[in-house]
């Protein structure tokens, strides 16, 4: 039992008892929402952090997860698949859409890949908006089925969702860690570093990339189900480009490719977004400044954070080893550089 394990155990225990200590439902509600975003960030981290495939439309999979719950567990079609079963179905559905997005992008790299994923991120919410006979268009789908456990409905308290998310995040961390250390994880790292060299090693880059898209998407399928059930509503405007950018910013802030990094990054941004800004706005109102609304400065603040990070710590708060090397590799041994130079000159002669 190392100190690291002890610290993790303590953190886990603290999170489990937290709702018993803090009876303020709005705090637990905030944590549950933050939890959904942590799941999203863990999923996007597989695609962007592990495999190096820049995805600017990740919110699309969140939408697909949410809408699968809304359509399969509500009065909308009179279908009532249980919440717990949906936690198995929705990730599979999202993963299939991950393959659907992945397939046409396999030959694309960098900027071009990002543009296609951006398009996908726009198409999906638009589709839900325009298929109004199935989705009620802009009104969205409401009155979703209440999850229940052993006959006890979740009700309007955030606490049961908090625990579901806590469990899913724990599983998500385990899954992400095992994936990272697996053969597949090494293949992701290789294609991120140099795709052509990876092919020389006998890595099937097609299957490897598709696996990243599918597995990454499955996390947001899970997040979508819990988020939709908790909110009791899905509507197409919840899944816009700003959500994709928010999740990506969480990765950049925390440290792409590092599981603990992206968790910290997503918690910090959620905290600013849903807690710090609204709370300080209320404080300002209480102090008599009735016209201020700090929540309007949300995106400006993200911008400032991202620019600051890029200038001072581009590898993120808790970087992965590879990323750290990537941003600091200019510090080469001068003796080696000289040797390199003389080797090239040797050829010129």
């Amino acid at each position: 039992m190392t100190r690291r394990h002890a610290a993790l155990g303590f953190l886990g225990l603290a999170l489990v008892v937290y709702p018993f200590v803090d009876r303020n439902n709005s705090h637990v509600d905030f944590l549950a929402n933050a939890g959904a975003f942590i799941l999203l960030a863990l999923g996007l981290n597989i695609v962007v952090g592990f495999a190096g495939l820049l995805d600017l439309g990740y919110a699309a999979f969140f939408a697909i997860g949410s809408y699968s719950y809304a359509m399969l567990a509500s009065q909308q079609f009179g279908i009532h698949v249980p919440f717990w079963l949906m936690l198995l179905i929705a990730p599979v559905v999202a993963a299939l859409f991950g393959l659907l997005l992945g397939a046409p992008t396999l030959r694309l790299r960098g900027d071009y890949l990002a543009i296609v994923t951006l398009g996908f991120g726009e198409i999906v919410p638009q589709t839900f908006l325009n298929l109004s006979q199935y989705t009620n268009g802009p009104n969205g789908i409401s009155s979703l089925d209440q999850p229940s456990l052993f006959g006890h409905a979740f009700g309007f308290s955030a606490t049961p969702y908090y625990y579901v998310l806590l469990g899913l995040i724990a599983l998500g961390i385990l899954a992400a860690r095992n994936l990272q250390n697996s053969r597949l994880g090494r293949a992701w790292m290789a294609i991120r570093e140099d795709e052509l060299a990876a092919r020389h090693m006998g890595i099937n880059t097609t299957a490897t990339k598709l696996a990243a898209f599918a597995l990454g998407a499955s996390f947001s399928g899970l997040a979508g189900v819990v988020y939709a059930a908790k909110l009791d509503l899905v509507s197409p405007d919840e899944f816009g480009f700003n959500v994709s950018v928010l999740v990506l910013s969480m990765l950049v802030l925390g440290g792409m490719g590092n599981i603990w990094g992206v968790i910290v990054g997503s918690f910090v941004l959620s905290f600013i977004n849903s807690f710090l800004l609204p709370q300080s706005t209320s404080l300002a109102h209480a102090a008599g400044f009735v016209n201020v609304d700090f929540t309007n400065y949300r995106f400006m603040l993200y911008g400032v954070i991202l620019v600051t990070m890029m200038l001072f710590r581009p590898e993120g708060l808790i970087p992965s080893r590879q990323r750290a090397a990537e941003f600091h590799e200019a510090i080469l041994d001068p003796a080696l550089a000289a040797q390199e130079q003389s080797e090239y000159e040797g050829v010129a002669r």
Partner: protein
Amino acid sequence: MALLEVDGLDAFYGRIRALEGVSLRVAQGEIVALIGANGAGKTTTLRAISGLMRAAKGHIVFDGHDIGRLGPAEIVRRGIGHSPEGRRVFARMTVRENLELGAFTRTSGAEFAEDFERVLAIFPRLRERLTQKSGTLSGGEQQMLAMARALMSRPRLLMLDEPSLGLSPILVQTIFRVIREINERGTTVLLIEQNARQALGIATRGYVLEVGKIAFEDTAANLMASEAVRAAYLGGGAA
């Protein structure tokens, strides 16, 4: 029956023809050199053999099986290792991690350990640098790593694309000595080189590619002696 038989290969980049009816064979235990000027199609030939690009026409038979329609992953698995043009080591990974990725197609841990030791015996310099980021290695060491990495798939045929490129004359000597050693330990080698003299010096046989076609093929000794080859590729004796 040769280990590798390439017959009538045509390949295109878009509408530009890169290879025209290229045929060559490599027998078990040989070192075969494929020489030619820049843009003659040497790299394209290797890329077609290892499945990184698909030939428009022709057959590639390895160990009695047609591999012309297989993907690169399956071809590595069947025993063709390919050390790419420009080395392409994974610069931000350590030497050890590079070697582990070289063994990606292999699943047995025991065999991995065995190959690891075998490869480090050939390249003792790499053993000293196992935990070092490969991007910080010198050019010669990176070339050794690229070759070692390709050997980690335990290939029966090792294809080397310009292993001497960008290296000092002393390092070039070392690299060619190592290629011979690899061959003596039982790996068949197909070698691409612009450094024709050195390549033919260690090869059994050679092929000369000129604008996508095989212009000459012969034993290495005969090619070295040939007036036409000397004039075009060996610096006309002035080297």
